[in-house]
């Protein structure tokens, strides 16, 4: 497993270099010029040329890329075209919010999804199954902005239990918990639905397994049979989905961040794409890729913890 981890980390380096190249080229090839955005509609041709020069965009693209790569190898992600701040710093201030949000919504998704899936598997084709299925499907078909707005209307505006938006405290504090609850539910429902469906399907397979019968034959209490003997086995495919969704959540926080006025990386990325802030986009993608790969690595390690049969050559 150590070799597996080392191997994956080495692959990660190549992956990241590949990503810098693709993002760099794509951003430069895609239409839209950072200078004309910075200049705005009023900018004259000479204004734009001056901005180009200031940003170093007048150099040949290969030189620009090599400069960028060189910077990265020295741990320097460059400076934002827009704000002139260091890219690393800009991302760093927003990253905790996004990670908090992703983790909190993953927790929500798991808390809702796993039990819902299991219950609907246990009561297959009963009304409980029907309603859990229907609810999870509703969960995946409700657009995030709509759900978010609805939650705001009910819990923040009418009941005034929770704040409308903003996130500036870590989510494990009470204030932070209150702040993150609605966004986490908004973002988590989609994954909860996916997790519920996966749990249901894998649970359906597991409860027919022979070892479940063995557990019953030992006189194990029914709830222990389900929550101990079945769950751990059923969790294996669910963990994959959780890993996939977590990656998706990192990139998918945008709308939630927008609706709940959370200053996160997702929003930063969209803003940066819109303003063609190349260094910011490159840095952000690099970071998201990095986290994503690490999350997947963790998922693979968790696999091995859940399922002793899994080994990595």
């Amino acid at each position: 497993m150590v070799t597996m981890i080392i191997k994956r980390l080495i692959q990660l380096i190549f992956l990241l270099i590949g990503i810098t190249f693709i993002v760099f080229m794509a951003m430069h090839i895609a239409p839209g010029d950072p200078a004309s955005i910075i200049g705005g509609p009023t900018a004259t041709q000479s204004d734009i040329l001056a901005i180009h020069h200031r940003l170093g965009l007048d150099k040949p693209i290969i030189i620009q890329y090599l400069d960028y790569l060189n910077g990265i190898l020295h741990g320097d992600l460059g400076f934002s075209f827009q704000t002139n701040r260091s890219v690393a710093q800009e991302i760093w201030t927003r990253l905790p919010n996004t990670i908090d949000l992703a983790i909190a919504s993953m927790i929500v998704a798991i808390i809702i999804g796993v039990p819902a899936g299991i219950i609907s598997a246990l009561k297959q084709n009963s009304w409980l199954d029907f309603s859990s299925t229907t609810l999870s499907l509703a969960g995946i078909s409700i657009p995030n902005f709509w759900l978010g707005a609805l939650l705001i209307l009910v819990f923040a505006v009418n009941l005034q239990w929770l704040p409308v938006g903003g996130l500036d405290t870590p989510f494990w504090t009470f204030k932070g918990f209150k702040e993150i609850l609605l966004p986490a539910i908004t973002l988590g429902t989609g994954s909860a639905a996916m997790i519920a469906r996966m749990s249901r399907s894998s649970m359906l397979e597991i409860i027919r397994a022979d070892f479940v019968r063995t557990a019953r034959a030992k006189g194990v209490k029914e709830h222990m049979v389900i929550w101990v003997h079945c769950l751990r086995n059923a969790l294996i495919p669910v963990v994959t989905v959780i890993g996939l969704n977590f990656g998706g959540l990192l990139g998918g926080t945008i709308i939630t961040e927008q609706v709940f006025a959370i200053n996160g990386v997702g929003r930063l990325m969209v803003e940066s794409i819109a303003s063609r802030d190349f260094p910011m986009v490159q840095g952000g993608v690099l970071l998201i890729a990095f986290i994503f790969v690490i999350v997947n690595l963790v998922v693979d390690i968790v696999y091995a913890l859940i399922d002793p049969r899994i080994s990595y050559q």
Partner: protein
Amino acid sequence: MQPQTTETSVSVKVSKNEALTRRLKQFFKYKLAVIGLIVILVQIFLAIFANSVTSYSPTVQDLTHVNLKPGSPGHWLGTDNYGRDMWSRLVFGARLSLMVGFSSVIIGTVIGTLLGLLAGFYKFLDTIIMRISDLMFAFPGILLAMLIIAILGTSLLNVVIAISIWSIPSCARIVRGSVLSLKKQEYITAMRALGASHFRIIFQHILPNGTAPIIVFATMHMGTAILSTSALSFLGLGAEPSTPEWGAMISAGQQYMWQAPHLVIIPGIAIMLVVFAFNVVGDALRDMLDPNMKSR
């Protein structure tokens, strides 16, 4: 010898018919699935006969009758913020949205499944395919879509391509996971003992046994795909904004969420119905494909 053969082949045929009716019976046991199937058929019907079931064009505006609530005379589902008939837009929208959903699910699932099968089966392809999929995954979806559309241009077709590409890595990963465990099964060894080609093993034996997660993925993805068009229209990357398409309708209706909530709710419900229908049919399908479940 001769008469015996014909006899047996007849009996086999009969049992085939029996199997068919038995299958239909099982299918109808899944009441939800029946409802789902009806929903899909109705939507397809509406999509095909959109012209005959509507009395307004889905694109012609009437600025004197905007944001009419559902139940208004002449417009039973109301009108949107340009006075276009919601019912017409919904029905014509079914064409595009179902098309977008279907095609991106099919493209994404077929390619994803293929890559997943290869990655799971051939060790030497595994690292390559999985790292490439990591790479695609690591890109935020919207950026990926923006890049694709920036390179290919704005059109509904490109939206389909973007959404499909977006879904390939997840599908590949899910399929690969099940292939990894399936390929160790004894019956796969048995197939090798028979001298079956890799192609045969992969497509005749591994694939059919790995369908359950693929079905779950594909049916769930149907909804995600249609909703993604909404996210893309939000960025101006979808069809023309006047085109009736559910995702675009939702994103356009967002601004009127408070004033005229039906602009979001109606297409939202339509998407939900589709997702629901495909999922319950998928569930039934999954159960039907599982020989162990047949007797249940």
